[in-house]
Structures are given as C-alpha cells and as structure tokens.
C-alpha cells in the first residue's frame, strides 16, 4: 500500500501544481513547490514497511514491492533527490513550471521504476523518466539546450525502442510476467535475443562508450539540481534494468563475459581521456560519470564469467552505485555554489573528489576494493586487476582537473546552499553504514591500503610531469563524436529536404470558387454532335431499320 502511495504522491503533486498554474493560482503553486523536496523521502517508507502490493486494475496488472537488488539505488534516490530538490526549491527562479513538470515527472517515473514488480510497470516508469528528463535538459531554453535535448531525445528513444523490442519478445511467451519470476527461472533467455536488446537499451541510459554521446551534452546543460539528479540517480536506472532483465545463465560462453569486461574497462579509460580534454567543470564531471559506469559494467560482467556470484555482485555494485551517486550529486551541487569562493568550500569540494578517486579510508576505497575483490573472483588475466587500478589513477587525474576548474569559480555572491554540505556528509557516511549493514568484510589489511595508494601516487607524479612539460592542453568539443555525426545528418537531411522540396504539399488553400463542370474537350464536342445527329429523323429511321434487320436475322437463323 505504501508503495502505491509513493508512486501516486508525485503525480498528484504534479497535477495539483499544474492546474494551479493553469488556473493562475500562483500563491497555491508556491506552497505546493515547498512540498516538492520532501516527496523523494517517501521512498524510504516502503523500504521500511517492506510491503508488496498487487493491483489488477492499473495498466496490465501492476505489482509493487521492494526487493534486495533495488535497495541501494532506492536509498541513493531518496537522499540525492531530496537534497537536490531542496536546492532547486530556492535556486530555480525562471521557467519554474517547465522545470517542476520535468522534475516531478522524472520523480514519479523513478518511483514507479524502483517499486515496480512487473515488466509493464517497470517500462512505464522508465518511459516516464526518460521523457521528463528531456524537459529537465531543455529547461534553460538556450540553443545549446535545444541541441542537447534533441540528441538526448533521439538516443533515449532509440534506447527505449530497443527496450520495447526486448520486453515484447519476453511478453510473447510470459505475458506481463512479474520480475521475480523473470529472475527466478530465466528459461525465456534462450528463446530469443531479448536479453541483448535489453542490454543495449539500458546501456544507452548508462552511457556506455559507443552510446554515451548524449550524456556529456545533456548533463552539463541542465540546471544544477537537474544535472545532479541526472548524473547521480537517473543513470543508475540503467543499472537496475541490467540487474533485472539481463540475467546470466550457468553455462554462459566465456567470450561474452570477457567482451563485457573489455567494454567496461574501455569505457572507464575512454571517459577519463575525453574528460581531460574538456574545459567546463560540469562536462568533466559528466565524463567522470561515464567512466564510473564503465567500472560498473566490469563488475556486472563478472556474473557472466563465474557462476553463482550474483549476491556478491549485487552487494558490490550496489555499494559502488550508492557511493558514486552521492558523491557525484554533491559535486554537481557544488557547481551551483561557486566552490572556489573560499578555502572552506574548496575543502568541501575536495572530499567527494578524493572519494571518487578511491583514496584510502574514503567510501571510494571501500567500493573500489569490493569491486576489485569481485573482479578477482573471475578467472581473468592478471592484466585486468592491473588495469582496474590504473582506472583509479585515471579518475584521480580527472578529479585533479575538476579541482583545478573548481578553483577558478570564485564568484562570492552565490551563497552556499546547506544542501551541498549535507550531501557531502551523506556521501561520506552512508556507504560505510550500508557496507556494515550489508555485512561486507571490512579489512584494513595493509595490502588493500597499499593497493589503493600507489595509483594515487602515480597520478600525482603524472600531474607534476604534465604541468612541467607543455602546459598546452588538448581541446575537444563537448560530446566529441556527436559533432561529426550531426554534421553528417544535417548534410543528408538537406539533400533529402531538397529532394522532397519538389514534392511539397499540394497547395490546397481554401480557394472557394464554386465547382463548375470542366470545359468540353474536343472528344466531348464530337460526342454531343453525334447525339444531335441521332435526333434527326432519317438517322433514327436508319438505325431502326438496321436494328430490326439484325434482330430479324438473329432470331430467324441464330435461334436453333
């Protein structure tokens, strides 16, 4: 029951806000807005109550409930979203209706997504989330926002299309199956390629390498709280999708797991490489999200390499997601509060960067070690763990760049919003609390500490070397590959439109001359002349005699 409430409240709020605005009751709208930040916390209620509801009426028979895989993302969503909501409540001034429609829509989608117990509801939540996110991305209304929005929408829809194909393939045999049943006996996997369609669909949301193009465009351009939520929470929906719809079977051929592993590592390193070439802080952070998601993929790939490791994988990935979500959200909020204005703010900004770089004793170290242990389980080449550590170095480099950019933002007039420090604290504490609750082995064994320390040292060494040597930084436009693709599309579009131009819509403007019969053409004139001829008596007589004669012959001789 509580789950249903959690889903319905944001929608109700959206409708109330909407009609208030439409009817012009601004005062009522203001009051409703003040409620908005606290709605995400409702998520915690079903977590606590743990009730599972089944309602046959809505959609195709909606099941709601909370289960193990969704808990970390649930907590992350509750915390990050409410903080961002608090921040947005005071900071968003113009285009409020547009923003809040997007915000509450996304929130409702996320709620439904998290609490969904059956495929249809999950897909409904996911679709609502994607569509509302578009509104958040295009909220500023600048040209750049429109471009980002267009790219985002195209890729989001493509992803959703793939998702739909996968879901329908499953629905063919199982109908609107509950998710539990899906995970329990994945018999349907072998029947069709549904699994791979779903993998690709969710990969778009996670920004895995070839499909990441929209992320560096969309996240930075959105208003600060929206970027925080986008990068922090919404991206994790993709992970949830993988966990639910892409189960690994026993005798999975090895090359699949290795391919995924490689893709994850490539994304991690690629994200950092591209991030280093950026000039804007929020874009750097966006690329850092891409690389972190790559790491998640490596963790996920393990399930394909070694059987029976699902609980461990769930715990590790959940922890990592939680850690990354909170810290990334706080970093984005920082962008809204001029981090470079005072040393105190710089310190606040530094904490999450260190966590992300997996400095020892931070939540990052915790998550990264869990991840490394997970990957170690898989019978892969030793090279993989080495590369994994290198990713920490890379992230550290990226964080250093971000820190550099943050220092330049020294506009003191922008106040420090309390939501930022709150989120930073949560980022530090909550992963630890979760790890303890989750029962993860917390060793502080020296080799683990050392293993997390040397990458940082290497990173510091590289930074020093880099600034000494050239000082020139390589510049890349945001969204890297998107730019050439866009140019290609506009070229193609132009030619298509020109070709189509000739066939523009027939001008059917409403000229209202009455309908008059067409002018008689020559044939018609001849026909009328023939008719006039038949009127004359001699011709009629001739016709009569001819017909009579023919009839006489036929009757007399044709008869027998």
């Amino acid at each position: 029951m509580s789950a249903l409430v959690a889903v319905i409240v944001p929608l109700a709020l959206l409708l109330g806000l909407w009609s208030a605005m439409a009817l012009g009751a601004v005062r009522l709208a203001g009051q409703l807005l003040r409620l908005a930040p606290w709605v995400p916390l409702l998520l915690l209620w079903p977590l606590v109550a743990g009730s599972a509801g089944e309602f046959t009426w809505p959609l195709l028979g909606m099941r709601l409930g909370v289960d193990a895989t969704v808990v970390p993302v649930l907590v992350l969503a509750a915390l990050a979203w409410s903080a961002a909501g608090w921040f947005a409540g005071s900071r968003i001034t113009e285009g409020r209706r547009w923003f809040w429609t997007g915000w509450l829509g996304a929130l409702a989608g996320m709620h439904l997504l998290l609490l969904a117990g059956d495929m249809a509801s999950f897909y409904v939540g996911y679709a609502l989330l994607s569509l509302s996110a578009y509104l958040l991305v295009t909220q500023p209304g600048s040209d750049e926002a429109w471009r980002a929005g267009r790219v985002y929408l195209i890729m989001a829809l493509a992803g959703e299309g793939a998702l739909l194909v996968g879901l329908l393939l499953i629905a063919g045999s199982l109908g609107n199956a509950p998710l539990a049943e899906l995970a329990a006996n994945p018999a349907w996997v072998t029947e069709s390629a549904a699994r791979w369609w779903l993998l690709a669909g969710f990969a778009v949301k996670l920004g895995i390498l070839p499909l990441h193009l929209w992320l560096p465009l969309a996240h930075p351009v959105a208003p600060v709280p929206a970027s925080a939520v986008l990068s922090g929470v919404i991206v994790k929906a993709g992970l949830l999708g993988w966990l639910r719809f892409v189960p690994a079977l026993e005798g999975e051929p090895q090359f699949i797991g290795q391919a995924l592993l490689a893709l994850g590592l490539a994304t991690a390193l690629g994200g950092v490489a591209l991030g280093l070439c950026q000039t804007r802080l929020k874009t750097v952070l966006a690329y850092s999200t891409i690389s972190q998601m790559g790491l998640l993929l490596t963790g996920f790939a393990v399930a394909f390499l070694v059987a029976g490791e699902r609980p461990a994988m769930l715990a590790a990935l959940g922890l990592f997601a939680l850690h990354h979500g909170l810290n990334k959200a706080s970093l984005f909020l920082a962008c809204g509060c001029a981090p470079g204005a005072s040393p105190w703010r710089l310190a606040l900004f530094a904490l999450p960067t260190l966590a992300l770089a997996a400095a020892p004793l931070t939540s990052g170290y915790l998550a990264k070690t869990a991840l490394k242990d997970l990957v170690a389980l898989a019978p892969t080449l030793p090279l993989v763990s080495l590369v994994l550590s290198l990713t920490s170095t890379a992230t550290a480099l990226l964080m250093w760049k971000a820190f550099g950019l943050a220092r330049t933002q020294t506009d003191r007039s922008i106040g420090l919003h309390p939501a930022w420090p709150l989120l930073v604290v949560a980022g530090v504490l909550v992963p630890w609390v979760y790890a303890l609750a989750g029962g993860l082995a917390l060793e502080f064994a020296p080799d683990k500490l050392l293993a997390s320390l040397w990458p940082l040292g290497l990173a510091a060494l590289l930074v020093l070397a880099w600034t000494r040597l050239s000082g020139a930084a390589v510049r890349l436009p945001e969204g890297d590959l998107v730019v050439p693709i866009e140019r290609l599309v506009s070229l193609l579009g132009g030619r298509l439109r020109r070709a189509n131009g000739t066939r523009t819509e027939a001008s059917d403007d409403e000229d209202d001359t009455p309908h008059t019969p067409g002018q008689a053409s020559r044939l018609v004139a001849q026909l009328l002349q023939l008719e006039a001829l038949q009127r004359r008596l001699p011709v009629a007589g001739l016709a009569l005699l001819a017909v009579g004669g023919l009839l006489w012959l036929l009757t007399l001789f044709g008869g027998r």
Partner: protein
Amino acid sequence: MSLAIDLLIATGLVVLAWQALVGGSLFRGIVMFIVFGLTMALAWARLGSPDLAMAEAAIGAGVTGALLMIAYWRLRALGANRPAPRSPLRARVALGVGLLSAVLVAMIGLAAVGAIGPGGEAGQALAEALPATGLGNPITGVLVIFRNLDTLLEVAVLLAAYVASRAVMGDDKAALPLPPAQDAPLVGALVAVLAPLAVLVAIYLLKAGSQLPGGAFQAGAVLAAGGVLLMLAGRLHPAPLCGVGLRIALVAGTVVFSGVGLIMLALGQPLLAIPGTWAVYLIETAMMISIGATLVLLFAGSAGLTGTPRR
C-alpha cells in the same frame, strides 16, 4: 377479267402513292393523296366490303383531304411554306433508307403472302355468334357488341385528339384563319340543298348500319362533311369558346357507351355487355354525333362553332 381490274387498281394505288409522296409540289401531293384515297375506296369495294369503302371515301379521302387542304392553306397564310434547305446529310442517308426500306418491303411482302390462307378461328366464331345478336351487319356486331372496348377507346382517342389540339393552340388565339366565304350565288343554293341531304343520308346510314353496310362512323363522317361545307360556305364560323351543347356532343359517344356498359355491369351482366338492338342504336347515334362534331371542330381548328359571324 377480275384479275385485270384488281391489277389495275393495285398498280394505280402504288403509282398514286408515289406521286403523292415523292416529287412534285406539295399541293399536287395533297391532290394525289385524295385520289389515292378514292382508289383505296375502290379497292375496298373490290374486296367486298362496302362499309370500308364508304368509310375510306368519307373519312380517308374526304375529311383527311379537307384537313390537309386547310392546313396547307394556313401554312401558306402564315408564309411558312419556304422549302427547307436541302441538308447534305439527307442526300447521303436517302440511299441507305431507300435500300433498307426496299429490303423491308420484300420481307413484309414475303411474310404477308405466307399469311394468306383460310380465315382464322375468330372469323368463324364471329359468323356463329352474329345471329344471336339480332344484327345483320357483322362489322357493326364486332364494333358495338363483340369488341366494343376498341370502339369505346377509339372514340376516346378522337376526344383526346380534340383536347390535345386545343392544348396545342394555347390560350392566346381564338381560332386559326379560315379562307373567306365564297358569296357567289350558286354556292348558297348548293349549300341549301346539300346540307339537309347530308343529314338525311347520315340518319339513313345509321339506321341501315345494323343490317346493311353503314354505321356510326360513316354517318358521322357524312355529318362532318356537311359541317365543313357549311363552314366553307360561310354559314358556320369558329368561335373562341365551346358552347355547352357542343361540349356534350363531343363527349356524348364516350359517356353513353361507358354508361350503358357500366349499368349492365351493375346489373350483374359482364362488363360492356349490350342488352339489345335498342342499346346498339342509342350508342350508334351518340357516337355519330360525337364523331361529326369532333371532325368539324378539328377542321375549324377552334374551340367552338357559332351560326353568327364574328364582327
């Protein structure tokens, strides 16, 4: 011998038909037509049916000829007699029509010759049923008793022709022009003798009709001829309105015949059964009056007739 006479009359008919219809002036055509009518009467006589001969002579040649003449005169009075332009089309089609009608004639001739044979069953039935009716003349028997519906409808046709020609006239004109009366002395005397004679002959024909050749149609035609004579002699003039008496005369034939027929039906007899010879005479006189009046009015081309000339 009789074959020669028949051949003569037959070829005469064909030649006269050709003369009337092809070539020559219109007036000559009309005159030839009247002669053709008379020859036709001769033919009927040769074929042993005096009734038909009288009818053909009186109506076929006499009244029709008069109508044609008065129409020709009126057309000339209206100046509408200029010959129509000879359209090229007609020349081309003429040959075709001629050829095809020749084929048609051959076909009809062949068929008709084949049809010649002993009298049909209807003829025998007539011969047997006639004595029962007390009539001598089979034609009157057929006309009034056996196939009386035809005769009734035929009088109705005559009435329809009159009303239709009134409809054609339209309201604006009282009557069509008539040639000025000839006031030469001899005409007056001639008329004074002939008019009563016509009435007398008509009555005689009517009475004799039941036993001997004659009958309502011939009597009516003679009356009409008398009327036409009076008109031409200027004694009788067309009038814009049709007097009540004349109207009753016009519809007398139809009304009396239908009346008798319906009364008999009411009395349980079959429809249009004729009770006796008195009924035959009653019907015959009514028809005579109707036919006479209608033909005269058709000749006059006016709604009614009056004795006094209009100023």
